[in-house]
């Protein structure tokens, strides 16, 4: 029996044939696809949903005036692929996998140790994705929406450059192995990249939870899938204002606002947002909240301000078109629908709403718009009379409205813990409907300082289960409450303890929210409005 000897200076054992080179890249591609679609795909597709691009130079003036404006313009076209998260995610995974392959080529050849270094190219890829996750809301809030596309393509072209450089470099180096043969057999960097991928996924799922949820919720809002929006909101461990806002919008659309609004905790995490004419999170949700709260003028105003600051975005144009539709501003609605129609893949929106211009009666047959219309203010008022944001400030002070707006004003009073305001509105609510559980819980809290209050609400006074539940809560909270006369910091610390220790048992009750929610609540006063 004879065998042919075939060997190269760094030949791998026969077991390597069981795992051909492409395995690393195939696995990498699959994992990247999972990340770019399932794990973080909603973020990319929400950014794409914000994107505005068209071929008309006039409509793209804002973008063109920016440094690198022409690059942004081109990149915004590439961003279109993410309108479908599967298409965009797969393409992005493909580009990133190719980048990894090029990086591998760049490094493996000069060092002549392919197996060891195979997969090292995934490290910069994972690093880039990790940066994107780290950026969080800053990936699109007040910055150019095509940023992540540009960086992905930049990495790709950089990898090609590296590969070309590596090719020329490998010709000059000797062919002798620079690394011990034993070490060469280990797919060390592939394993390292795999571990990094695990860290990336953890980062996205845990650290980036709110960003993923907010984007997924906004995508579901666009689809009118309120059930999913609400479920996503409830899944947040420590929701941001964006998540809480869209959760509230979904409950409002489902007529379950008072029943479930306090199912989520309301202690917003501090965000590190880029400053670009402002750094508040409101740029993401206030316009929508005003819109769904039946305040199209205020929604239009905030949308216009956002347009000025961040430039053209199709979701802004869509919202402004809908505000104009609701206000029966026909030519204005035409203007915005015309703009939307200039962008690829937006015809469905235009075709849906163009026939409704000038037909508000038809528009409000849609349940969503019927809900909004049902919240319209009955009294003329200036925003300056309300605290900001207007959707809260208006509901806090309005004295005349529909039954639907009574619910929103009760919810606002509960959210802002204004007990006197709340009790006044509950008195009216109780005449129109049975009081939701959260409202009854609020009455019990209010009765602590107003003992006669319960006489007016026998349905609460005589509800023995509710009363005993409140008693139990009082016993649980008693050891955690700061003693009277404590300074603010001590009080805050006690609120945080209450929030942490009572969460498992009491989250979902108004008691829990009242005594531990919105610890850092500040409702900004309406500021002096200057003229530009």
């Amino acid at each position, binding site marked *: 029996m004879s065998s042919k000897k075939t060997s190269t200076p760094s030949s791998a054992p026969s077991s390597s044939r069981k795992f051909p080179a492409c395995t690393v890249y195939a696995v990498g591609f699959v994992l990247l696809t999972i990340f770019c679609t399932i794990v973080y795909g909603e973020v990319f597709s929400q950014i794409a949903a914000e994107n505005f691009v068209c*071929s*008309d*130079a*006039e*409509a793209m*003036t*804002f973008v*063109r*005036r*920016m*440094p690198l*404006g*022409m690059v942004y313009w081109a990149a915004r076209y590439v961003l279109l692929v993410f309108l479908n998260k599967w298409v965009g995610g797969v393409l992005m995974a493909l580009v990133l996998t190719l980048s990894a392959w090029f990086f591998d080529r760049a490094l493996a050849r000069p060092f002549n140790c392919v197996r060891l270094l195979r997969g090292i190219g995934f490290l910069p890829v994972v690093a880039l994705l990790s940066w994107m996750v780290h950026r969080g809301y800053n990936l699109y809030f007040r910055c150019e929406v095509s940023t992540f596309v540009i960086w992905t393509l930049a990495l790709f072209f950089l990898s090609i450059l590296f590969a070309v450089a590596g090719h020329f470099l490998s010709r000059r180096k000797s062919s002798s192995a620079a690394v011990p043969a034993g070490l060469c057999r280990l797919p060390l960097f592939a394993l390292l990249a795999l571990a990094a991928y695990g860290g990336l996924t953890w980062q996205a799922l845990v650290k980036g939870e709110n960003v993923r949820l907010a984007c997924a919720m906004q995508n579901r809002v666009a689809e009118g899938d309120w059930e999913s929006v609400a479920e996503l909101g409830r899944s947040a461990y420590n929701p941001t204002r964006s998540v809480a806002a869209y959760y509230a919008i979904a409950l409002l659309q489902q007529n379950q606002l008072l029943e479930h609004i306090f199912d989520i905790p309301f202690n917003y995490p501090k965000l590190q947002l880029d*400053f*670009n*004419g402002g750094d508040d999170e409101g740029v993401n949700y206030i316009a929508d909240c005003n819109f769904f709260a039946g*305040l199209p*003028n*205020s929604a*239009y*105003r905030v949308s*216009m*301000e956002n*347009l*000025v*600051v961040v430039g*053209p975005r199709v979701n802004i144009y869509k919202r402004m078109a809908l505000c104009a539709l609701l*206000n029966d*501003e026909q*030519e*204005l609605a*035409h*203007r915005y629908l*015309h*703009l939307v129609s*200039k962008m690829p893949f937006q015809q469905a929106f235009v075709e849906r709403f163009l026939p409704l211009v000038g037909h508000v009666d038809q528009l409000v047959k849609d349940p969503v718009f019927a809900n909004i219309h049902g919240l*319209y*203010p009955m*009294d*003329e*008022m*200036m*925003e*300056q009379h*309300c605290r900001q944001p*207007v959707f809260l400030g*208006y509901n806090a002070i309005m004295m005349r409205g529909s039954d639907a707006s009574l619910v929103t004003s009760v919810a606002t009073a509960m959210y802002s813990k204004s007990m006197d305001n709340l009790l006044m509105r509950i008195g009216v609510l109780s005449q129109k409907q049975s009081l939701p559980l959260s409202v009854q819980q609020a009455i019990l809290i209010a009765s602590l300082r107003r003992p006669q209050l319960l006489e007016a609400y026998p349905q609460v006074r005589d509800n023995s289960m509710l009363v005993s539940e409140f008693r139990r809560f009082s016993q649980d909270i008693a050891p955690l409450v700061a003693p009277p006369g404590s300074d603010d910091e001590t009080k805050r610390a006690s609120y945080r303890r209450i929030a942490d220790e009572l969460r498992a048992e009491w989250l979902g009750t108004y008691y829990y929210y009242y005594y531990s929610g919105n610890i850092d609540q500040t409702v900004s006063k309406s500021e*002096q*409005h*200057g*003229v*530009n």
Partner: protein
Amino acid sequence: MKAYPIFLTLLIALLAQACRPDAVVPADSVAVDEAANIYPEYRDVVIPPNIAPLNFMVRGEGDAFVCQLTAKRGGQELVAAAGEDGKILLDTLAWRELLLSARGSDIEVNVYSHRDGRWLHHPPYTLTVAEEEIDPYLTYRLIEPSYELYRQLGIYERNLTGFDEHPVYENNDVYAEGDNHCINCHTPQQYGKTGLSLFHVRGDHGGTIFMKGSQAERLNMKSDSTLGNAVYPAWHPEKPWVVFSSNKTGQAFHIAQSDKVEVIDYGSDLIFYDVENNKISNVLKTPVEMETFPTWSPDGNRLYYCSCTFAPLGHLPDTLQGTSRDLACSDSVIANYRNVRYRLMQLDFDSQTRRFSAPTLLLDCPAMQKSATLPRVSPDGRWLLFTMGDYGQFHIWHHSSDLYVMDLQAVGEGRQPAEAFRPLSAANSDNVESYHTWSSNGRWIVFSSRRDDGSYTRPYICYFDTQGQDHKPFLLPQQDPEQNLLRMKSYNIPEFSCSPVGATPETIRRAVYDDDAVRRVQE
């Protein structure tokens, strides 16, 4: 950076041209009663003989369109065609020749639509070409019709005989801490003939930029004796003097009303600035009277302005000072915004002594439940053009505002002012009409209008004939008529000029950014 969009535009234009049908009047067509749905609305307007081509879109059904323009005198003809996009783009040279031949007479416009395999001939309409030319330059600010925030904006100069538009000055393109600024109120003296002009900078690098020819300088117009910053300017027609209003302004946003914004003054006075001597002084400074919108007569012997008496301003306790006082004043005016009305006033002026007379009432608009703003006198001194609405002073946000004209000659001959004014019925629309200026020959008026959609202000030009009659206005023509629908900015403060701005954007930028070189006005 500018080459690429120009290249792209040219490429698209070439491609579009390739897709157009031949510019030939259809031999067979069917006459229909249906008027051609054109945008902008250029039907039956009077135009200057030196205006840029009135390119337009046909928005009706059809896969091809032809437009035939024929001068009624001489028969000169211009034919243009459009594909499915409906854009009729007129050859500039041919257009100029057409206007030349039709000067002082009419052009008949015939539009044909190709629909369902046949050509339809829509009812013709007319363009009347006036004898009098229009000033060749128009400056304006482009800014979103926003509420408080600003980012990218600029002052631009448009050549009305063509389509060239270039920036006089643009502010920072991106947010820049310490460099964010707004600009406004570009106003030339005497239609640019003297080379003097100015505009304001607000925010970072705030002040007023004065330009003389190619030079530019920034001044700090605030002084201890004046109410605040200099705002609305009025150049003396001959001397290097400017009367400004000095205003304290606030605004409020309607939650439900269609007039979405209410901009109010809670204090305003008139100030006089001597450019050569850098001296500022008060013309009218009163606690309860709000004086604003100054304008000179063409001979420089009279100053017109608007004034509102707001008694509550005089009843605030003296203990309220500073920001608290401002807030209280602002709240007081906002709470009564529907009762704030301005009248037209006048002051005689002696240019030798530089003294103003006591104010006299010209038109008591509040008595008519109206409020007047922005008076402008025609170059021949006969007509006073102004805006009037139901209340207030920032009429660009009031649907009720329209243009009016007063015959000052008739007033001088003894007619009561209240009987000597009338609306510009042909020029006005159901929507907002506001800021307006006369051309240097007094035959053209440019004004801001929101008639297109109620939100985005566009400049409209109307002819004002020697009989004092206004005519149907036309929208500022654009090379691509669709641009009016895609431009997401409003046009503010359109001002005619006979010559271009002398200072370059770079010179102006240096003046804006050089904080060390700012001069302060003297009292």
